């Protein structure tokens, strides 16, 4: 069973890749840091444990400038690999530009030791498509599929006004630090719509109305694209349950169009496509 | 599913055989018909010509009775009752003013929602042709039937919504299911003169003659009807027509429910075949149905 370090070291020694992006222990217990290992020695610092919660595919996007002539190796969990699929699907990179080192994963925890919501309903445990596997393919896990949208059920029971109260209390906390945007691998736009001033669709201040239109925009921009890696919710120090918005979008896209983000890199993005028999019972 | 049964006056009197045959056929098909308690006359054709409001309030009172007694569907075999119930329901639903007046006259709620079906609709929509096909034990092979619809069943079409007013097929389909052959003929929706039989008998004789002639030309052995008034004009007056036009008129006129009853193997006398003025037995025996 090839360990992560050996694979990485081999790649760097053979010069197949320009760097290996992986995890290394952080400065605070329970935290891990990202490491851009460029030399075989640096590869030794690579590790993988239950605290490797970051979605490293964010470093493949353009503004980080890591993608060069040579491919880049990336340590990927099952969820991260689905993000790579979406990035390929959206012309941000080509499959041959990234060497995927898959790691079997049975759930990751954030720095406070709380298991991520996504892991409870994750049945895949290892990426579908990869170039090398560091470890054994774990036995498939039987997961009740309804778990995936369980968290949304509490909202169906609430009336619109109750939902409004809930979300206004949440959005009121937002400080517009945009950590949710910057932590998301799929928010790779050079200049985000909130920074556009001609015209200013979303007000930059932290009033609840401005926060509402920001979070509605963010959720809708990720509809049909977000694979539920949970980084936005983890990065939000104000503890706003952003993951619920994305999960609701994933549920609507799945219910209405049977489309699940990140399944395949060749599929046509859901909102750039349509079907003649799409549902329309809400149209008069 | 139990249905509110609204026989109407004639089915308790001159058209008793329509009532018996309906009951027998429904029992055979286990469609439970429960007569509406204390129903009143629906006003038939004359009422609404003399007083428009009463012409609506009378039949609507029956619907209110049915609603109070927990029926959500009312079945009326007689075409005139069916027509008046449907018209009353239509008027009340489409005009607030009429609804107010009827509420005042009957003294009870008018925002009730009762479904009104004719007996042939019950067979077609509730029982369904597919199940009806299997249930006929004695097919009426070789019997040629001219199905006569008359006016009240079909018109005004926006209100009755039973079938295409110009080219109805429901009774023809039911007849064909029994194994008999429903013949196409031109006069199936022509008027038989209805209540003019008393004041202007001559006109009824002319109109009925034309209808019977047209049925005979089409090769029909019997005429099937679904309205006591049509039955009266066509069956009762064949002798007078014969006398007036100097020809023999003896085409039997049966109720559609009697036809279905025969095909279900029910005893003809129970179906009331003996009480017709034109005796149907010779024709039925000739076609070895009896």
């Amino acid at each position, binding site marked *: 069973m090839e360990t992560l370090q050996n694979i990485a070291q081999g790649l760097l020694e053979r010069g197949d890749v320009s760097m290996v992006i992986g995890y290394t222990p952080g400065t605070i217990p329970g935290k891990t840091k990202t490491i851009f290992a460029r030399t075989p020695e640096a590869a030794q610092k690579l590790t993988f444990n239950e605290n490797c919660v970051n979605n490293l595919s964010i470093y493949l996007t353009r503004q980080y400038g890591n993608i060069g002539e040579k491919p880049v190796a990336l340590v990927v969990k099952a969820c991260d690999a689905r993000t790579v699929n979406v990035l390929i699907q959206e012309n941000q990179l080509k499959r041959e530009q990234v060497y995927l080192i898959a790691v079997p994963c049975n759930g990751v925890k954030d720095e406070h030791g709380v298991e991520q919501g996504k892991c409870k309903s994750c049945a895949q445990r290892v990426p579908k498509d990869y170039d090398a596997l560091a470890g054994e393919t774990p036995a498939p896990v039987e997961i009740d599929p309804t778990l995936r949208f369980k968290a949304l059920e509490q909202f169906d029971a609430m009336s619109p006004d109750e939902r409004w109260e809930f979300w206004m209390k949440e959005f009121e906390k937002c400080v517009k630090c945009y950590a949710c945007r910057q932590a998301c691998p799929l928010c790779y*736009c050079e200049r985000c719509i909130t920074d556009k001033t001609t*015209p200013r669709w979303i007000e930059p201040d932290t009033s609840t109305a401005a926060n509402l239109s920001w979070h509605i925009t963010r959720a809708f921009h990720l509809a049909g694209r977000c694979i539920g890696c949970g980084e936005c919710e983890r990065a939000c120090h104000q503890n706003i349950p952003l993951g619920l918005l994305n999960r609701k979008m994933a549920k609507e896209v799945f219910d209405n169009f049977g489309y699940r983000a990140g399944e395949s890199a060749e599929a046509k993005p859901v909102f*750039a496509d349509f079907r003649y028999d799409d549902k329309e019972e809400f149209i008069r | 599913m139990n249905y509110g049964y609204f026989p109407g006056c004639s089915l308790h009197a001159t058209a008793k055989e329509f009532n018996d045959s309906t009951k027998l056929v429904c029992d055979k098909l286990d469609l439970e018909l429960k007569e509406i308690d204390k129903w009143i006359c629906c006003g038939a054709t004359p009422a609404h010509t003399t007083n428009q409001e009463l012409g609506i309030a009378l039949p609507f009172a029956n619907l209110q009775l049915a609603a109070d007694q927990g029926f959500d569907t009312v079945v009326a075999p007689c075409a005139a009752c069916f027509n008046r119930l449907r018209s009353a329901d239509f008027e009340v639903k489409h005009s607030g003013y009429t609804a107010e007046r009827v509420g005042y006259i009957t003294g009870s709620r008018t925002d009730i929602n009762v479904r009104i079906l004719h007996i042939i609709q019950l067979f077609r929509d509730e029982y369904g042709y597919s199940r009806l096909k299997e249930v006929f034990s004695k097919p009426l092979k070789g019997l040629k039937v001219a199905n006569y619809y008359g006016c009240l069943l079909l018109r005004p079409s926006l209100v009755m919504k039973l079938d295409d007013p*110009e*080219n109805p097929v429901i009774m023809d389909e039911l007849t064909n299911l029994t194994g008999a052959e429903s013949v196409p003929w031109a*006069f199936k929706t022509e008027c038989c003169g209805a209540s003019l039989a008393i004041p202007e008998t001559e006109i009824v004789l002319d109109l009925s003659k034309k209808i019977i002639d047209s049925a005979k030309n089409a090769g029909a052995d019997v005429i099937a009807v679904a309205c006591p008034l049509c039955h009266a004009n066509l069956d009762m007056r064949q002798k007078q027509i014969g006398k007036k036009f100097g020809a023999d008129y003896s085409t039997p006129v049966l109720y559609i429910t009697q036809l279905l009853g025969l095909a279900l193997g029910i005893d003809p006398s129970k179906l009331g075949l003996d009480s017709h003025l034109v005796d149907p037995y010779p024709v039925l025996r000739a076609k070895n149905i009896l």
Partner: protein
Amino acid sequence: MARIGVFVCHCGENIGRTVDCSVVAKESAKLRDVVYSVDYKYMCSDPGQIMVKDAIKKHNLTGVVIASCSPLMHEKTFRRAVQETELSPFLCEMANIREQCSWVHEDKVLATKKAVDLVRLMVEKVKRNTPLEPIRIPVTKRALVIGGGIAGIQAALDIADGNQEVVMVEKSPSIGGHMAQLSETFPTLDCSQCILTPKMVSANSHKNIKLYTYTEVESVTGYIGNFDVTLRKKARYVDDSICSGCGICQEKCPQKKISSEFNTGLGKRPAIYIPFPQAVPNIPVIDKERCTYFKNGKCKACEKFCDRNAIKFDQTDEFINIKVGAIVVATGYEMYNIGKNNKNGIKGYGEYGCGEDPDIIDSLQFERLLSASGPTFGEVKRPSDGKVPETVVFLQCVGSRDKAKGMEYCSKICCMYTAKHTMLYKHKVHHGQAFVFYLDIRAGGKNYDEFVRRAIEEDGAIYLRGRVSKIYREGDKLIVKGADTLSGSQVEIAADLVVLATAITAQPDIVPLAQKLGVGYDKYHFLSEAHPKLKPVETNSAGIFLAGACQAPKDIPESVAQASAAAAKVLGLCSATELEREPYVAKVYESTCAGCGFCIEACPYKAIDNKAIVNRQGKLIKNVAYINQGLCQGCGTCLSVCRSKSIDLAGFTDEQIFSEINSLFV
């Protein structure tokens, strides 16, 4: 700073009655950037337009708002007027205070307030307009005519005579359309073959016309001046380049009993046939469904006897791609069939026997009986037993003007051809008597009413004003029960033959074609013209024109007139070397585009593709979307799928729409 002029129109009474135009002008004058605001009785009139032009010069306005009718009506008029000043026409916007305000509201106070709001909206929008340049696009100097009836032929000939290439497409094996089926035509009773066949021949032989028969339009893409059309040439199983039209194959074909569509089911035809003797092109077609060879592989009689072996059983449908600059739709009509299976909410005629009785025929069938090339060679014989009918009853308005049957319109030509039928019947059966049940005789054309009077007074047709309630067969006769409202009596006629003047309806398969062309249609599936009075032959899709009965029921003179009108429009369009097109196209801000490619997938016109930006060493900097301004039609779908808002659509930019919304409820 912007200097905006507001011009409020009374439109005579149309706006002035429910909107207080002087108040609108006064309120608009208070707006921040409005430096000139006035109201006038008729802005679109000459003095009105001059007032606008003078104001622009005098107050050197940077934008103009005309508060009057709908932009779809007079935007072009006012923009042309503004063009004469040095202000760009695209800095003129219209506030729709007539169709969408004064005409639809009654409360004067509310309507006036709404008008003020609508003007404010447009003032805000016009401040963000930019002086756009119309886009010049090349024009393909070739026209496509869909439909080979008299309208299609006339349009094709006129265009070709304007030495312009024409491609004519006809669905059935021969051109000629319904006119070829007629015997003689009103009001001059000249025989349709004599006046039509020469046009058909010249259409087939004209050097500028390329004729495709037995061919349908498969797909249409592109836009005015640049349509890419794919035609499906259905397999004829006869090689049209070799066949000389000698007709041997039709004689030898064992299948003789197939009912002929051309003869409306009254005559018969073989499996390999030409629809009618004067068919153009004179090349037969094999009816795949009924040819014995195609059914069970035997026979091939036609192949044996064809000395040029022009029969090709293995022929398949052929697709032809052509580029055209303009399209004329002349697909004609179809007779309403009184049978049961009618679609689009149209009902059959149970009262007249649903078309089951052979002696109750429609007028096109009667035309075939009258026609010399018809199944009875011009002799009027009853389809049932071939006897010459002594009493013929004609029924007008069968289906037409009948809400219950789903067709409320008048089919316009039945009164005239029924009068013609009574005349021709009288000339052929001297002792015969024609009855006509009619509602109102509509004979409004030149010499039309005189024609009908002649049918009544000279040829003795009895016209009974009333409807027929029932027709039924009684032995050898057809009993027609109707009313004669003029004498107030019921009428019963024992007729030998009944001819129904059934309604004119749209072609059954017109809707898919209309959708391919992007042309609108009304609830009866007649194609919608751009404007009933001012643009009768144009449609809302630029470059696509209409002619003939596909637009609405009409007779031959009108169809020919419309065909020539459409031809004139096409010649006008194609005469220009290049076309000016609305400059409403989208543009990408490459600095902020993330190259995600959503817009590339979403564009209906495939006008967007990927463009790699590389530095001087050829190293890829980034991928961005690139919009080909020639193909872009300005629908704006790409704007909505662009998450970083890096695309903007000229004419409807984000800034403009944003400013409109922002000033809505001040």
